[in-house]
């Protein structure tokens, strides 16, 4: 299954909202990398990734998030992952990336 991405800038929250659906793997991760870079270049603000409809992500996709996060962090911004499915939440947990990307959800 391919990767689909929809994005818009939320004036109210002051963040980019990106809804990803399908699968992020070695074949599709480049698209996500490009979109995150483009959005951040257009407007420097936090990015919220809604993963409700994402069925799969692998280390390539997580690598894209880490890379983007690293570049955004230099200007004080970050990435937040929302509504990951259980299989993806498990992957974020075992790699300890939930500490970076799901911090807000854990403290709610």
């Amino acid at each position: 299954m391919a990767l689909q991405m929809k994005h818009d800038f939320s004036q109210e929250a002051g963040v980019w909202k990106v809804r990803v659906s399908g699968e992020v793997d070695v074949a599709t991760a480049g698209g996500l990398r490009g979109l995150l870079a483009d959005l951040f270049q257009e407007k420097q603000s936090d990015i919220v990734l809604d993963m409700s409809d994402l069925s799969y992500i692998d280390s390539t996709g997580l690598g894209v998030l880490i890379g983007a996060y690293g570049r955004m962090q230099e200007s004080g911004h970050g990435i937040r992952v929302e509504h990951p499915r259980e299989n993806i939440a498990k992957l974020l947990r075992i790699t300890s990336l939930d500490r970076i990307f799901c911090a807000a959800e854990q403290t709610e």
Partner: protein
Amino acid sequence: MADFLKISVPGKPEYVSTVRMTVSALANSAGFDIEAIEDIKVAVSEACTNVVRHGVEELNGYEVSCELGDDRLVICVIDHAGGYDVAGYKMPEPDHPKEGGLGIFIIRALMDEVDIFSEIGSGTRIQMVKYTHR
């Protein structure tokens, strides 16, 4: 008596999802639960991604072999992409995440047994085992 299934895969990124779906169907018919199927799917996919990202020429494929035993599924991902120094692998550090190096870590976390054999100048074989009742 174990059943064997072998797939020859072109070394292109777009075929990793084909392997993922095939192995997932196999694990499903072998009676693994949903979480275990997902673990197997991710681990095999990571092993294939390693091959595709680290070396295999587009013309050279790699092999995925599955052995379905009474209580286990053994999957080997075998390439002839020149091998690498397994001892040189560094575990990812949670406080300083990097873009690379997560694949092997994820495979080890999700499967019951993992063995990596690599010979520099030759190739790499990642063998992963998942037991049905654990």
